[in-house]
């Protein structure tokens, strides 16, 4: 039974994993020292740690996006903006409390989470109660959000110049791994625990697949959609917290700019249907790392920073075409014709 489950999951993760493998191979061809790490000031640095460090916010947002996609059959395009607002609140709480201690940081973090939940509830109510399409509902905050964030800031880019926040955004004394990586790991673990101890998965999938039937089986679809949007709000707050401590200042214009599209893309690369229903958070996490690795690989291949987006787009088009139902169906037909097939062979290589 266990084996069956593993195999089932692997077949869903086949696409993101094989893309990741291809990227690693490209990187190894470019230079065999890809996996090497160095210890600087007691912490690990290198291609892989930097990758994990750089993609922490994206990973966290992709998790929330997966949940919202599953239950509401649509995407939230305001995540980057919401994170900008929550992190602005965090910075304000910190700067106004005078003394920056672990306690005030914690309070600031809680406040930013509260704001995240509030904004998530705003989006969620539009989607679940008023039945506005998620992308349109979240377009409101997407449009207005950075101005709001700017108003909270009060002036251009407030600076967080102190040891504690730079430890959170960089390295804690005594810990060999950069803090954002650890925070991301903790967050993933908490999400896994939440999914394990609640019925969120069953409820969100049921609502995403068949809202009417969900209601007849006693599930309140509105509540479930509302909940996923609030959870995404928390994800935004955590991502904003990490982004602002990394940067050391709050720049309303540029913080987590354009990350919403990457988050949606991570969900898609992770093998999730953007039309809702069954979901794989593992897939989305791998998808997020894949996107980050893609950008970094292109940089390593000395593609200019101005042209990198175009290359990225080409790669993504190829990926989406390969993963499209049309190609999948074709491959499975080939597989049937040949007995053993292409996809199967791929799977074995992965395993």
């Amino acid at each position, binding site marked *: *039974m266990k084996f*069956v*489950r593993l195999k*089932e999951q692997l077949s869903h993760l086949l696409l993101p994993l094989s893309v990741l493998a291809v990227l690693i191979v490209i990187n190894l061809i470019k230079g065999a020292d890809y996996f090497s790490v160095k210890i600087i000031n007691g912490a690990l640095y290198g291609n892989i740690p930097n990758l994990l460090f750089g993609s922490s916010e994206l990973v966290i947002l992709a998790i929330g996006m997966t949940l919202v996609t599953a239950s509401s059959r649509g995407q939230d395009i305001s995540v980057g903006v919401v994170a900008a607002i929550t992190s602005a609140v965090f910075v304000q709480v910190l700067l106004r409390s005078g003394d920056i201690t672990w306690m005030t940081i914690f309070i600031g973090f809680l406040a930013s989470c509260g704001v995240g939940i509030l904004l998530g509830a705003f989006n969620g109510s539009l989607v679940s109660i008023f039945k506005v399409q998620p992308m349109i509902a979240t377009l409101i905050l997407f449009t207005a959000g950075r101005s709001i964030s700017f108003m909270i800031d009060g002036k251009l880019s407030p600076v967080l110049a102190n040891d504690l926040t730079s430890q959170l955004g960089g390295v804690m004394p005594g810990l060999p791994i950069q803090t954002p990586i650890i925070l991301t790991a903790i967050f993933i673990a908490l999400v896994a625990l939440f999914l*394990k*101890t*609640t*019925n*969120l998965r*069953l*409820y969100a*999938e*049921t609502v995403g*697949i*068949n809202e*009417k*039937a*969900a*209601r*007849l*089986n*006693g*599930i*309140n679809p509105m509540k479930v959609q509302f909940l996923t949007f609030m959870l995404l709000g928390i994800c935004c707050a955590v991502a904003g917290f990490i982004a602002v401590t990394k940067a050391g200042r709050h720049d309303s214009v540029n913080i987590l700019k354009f990350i919403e599209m990457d988050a949606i893309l991570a969900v898609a690369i992770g093998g999730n249907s953007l039309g809702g*229903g*069954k979901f794989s958070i593992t897939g989305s996490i791998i998808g997020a790392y894949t996107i980050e690795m893609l950008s970094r690989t292109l940089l390593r291949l000395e593609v200019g920073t101005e042209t990198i987006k175009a290359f990225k787009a080409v790669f993504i088009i190829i990926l989406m075409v390969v993963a499209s139902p049309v190609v999948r169906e074709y491959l499975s037909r080939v597989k049937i014709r040949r007995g053993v097939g292409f996809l199967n062979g791929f799977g074995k290589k992965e395993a």
Partner: protein
Amino acid sequence: MQSDKVLEMQGICKTFPGVKALSNVNFTLRKGEVHALMGENGAGKSTLVKVMTGVYEKDAGQIEVEGKVVHFKSPQEAQNNGIGTVYQEITLCPNLTVAENMFIGRGRHAFVSWTSMNAKAAKLLESLSIPARPTQQLSSCSLAVQQMIAIARAIDMDCKILVLDEPTSSLDEDEVRKLFALMRELKSRGVGIVFITHFLDQVYEISDRITVLRNGELIGEYEAASLPQFELVSKMMGKALEDVEGLKKRETVAREDVPVFEAAGLSSSASVKPFDFAIRKGEVNGFTGLLGSGRSESVRAIYAADSVTGGEIKINGKKVKIDEPIDAMKQGIGYLPEDRKGDGIIADLSVRENIILAMQVMKGFFKPISRKQAEAFADEYVKCLSIKTASTNTPIRSLSGGNQQKVILGRWLLTHPQYLILDEPTRGIDVGTKVEIQKLVLKLAEEGVSVTFISSEIEEMLRTCSRLIVMKDGQIAGELTGESLTQKDVMHVIAGGNE
């Protein structure tokens, strides 16, 4: 004689996985007649129409249009052969204009001459006396007018055969009259019309001939004038399956004890007039009546599947409030919906998840059933209901209809309900499974579960139910009890209404 027939279908067979939808059905349509196609749900009406209009390919048989053998592979081909279809739900674009809707997707040119299109539309609308302007937005027309425009669109494609699939179901009386006037006009032009409806009066008002189907088989073709309404109903509902004689229904339970469920003045948003209803422990009752009589709507009101607008409910003599399905579930009520695909199954989820769903929801959000426990539950019900599935991990959508139905039954049995509502549990599934489900209903009753059983097949209900509530026009028309219930009794209440 030959030239008179526009369409002749002979020996049409069509099988879907697990179900024989049509077996050896003949159908003939003459020039300038309205031919009603009658039958209960699952009788094969819509399958026959879909074969006729090229949506499905037939497995066997022959179709002739005006004496020419045809073999449609797509709706487009059927259209080119002069078969136009107007479906129950209007399939036009509400935000385009009337003229655009009439001509969309038909030109072979990239450019449109708006003036000539609008002029042509105006001419057509006038000749059919449809009260609409070509430049009007479609959504601003009433439903009946939209329906007529859909017909006009079909007519203009030079159709000789027009299929109307329940065109009147969302129209009021006045609108129906207008539609009928249009149908008569088309008739006089020599168009053959296939008319599907479940309103008996309308059939007699407009049809020349009637073909009755039941269980995918042709029952017969009749002149409308020489077939009394009572006989039509009996032909639609059919005779018994002889292989289930062994089933023995329970006797009516003594009247003294407190009902498990009791409703007074219950009404819902789905146009059910307030009604009273009670069911006792271990009783099997049925709601019967033709489609659209309100039998499903009534049980949906009990379960609060549609929003309840009034009434009082007592469970075991205690007053309770049931506003949402979850409230009903907590009172030990289970509900198997009529529309299995739309309301029942969660298509992409596994058999296991589908089985535990209701129980899981009753346990609550923070108390997930462990994977091991869930697998045990699923295995148990797959075994005891003999559900044919590769594993409990298989998505339910890949199961046959009958097995999907059993999974949903399993879902409710797992919650150990005291009152189970089964709305058309046997619809569209094979005979073997039908009998199994009936047996199960009787077994449950023996164990003390109260069951409400609804079926389009009156025989099935006569076999299982000790009490029948007959519905007509959203109201209870009568209640029948006793050992000697016959089909005739029921039909008298439905067709006549006096006895």
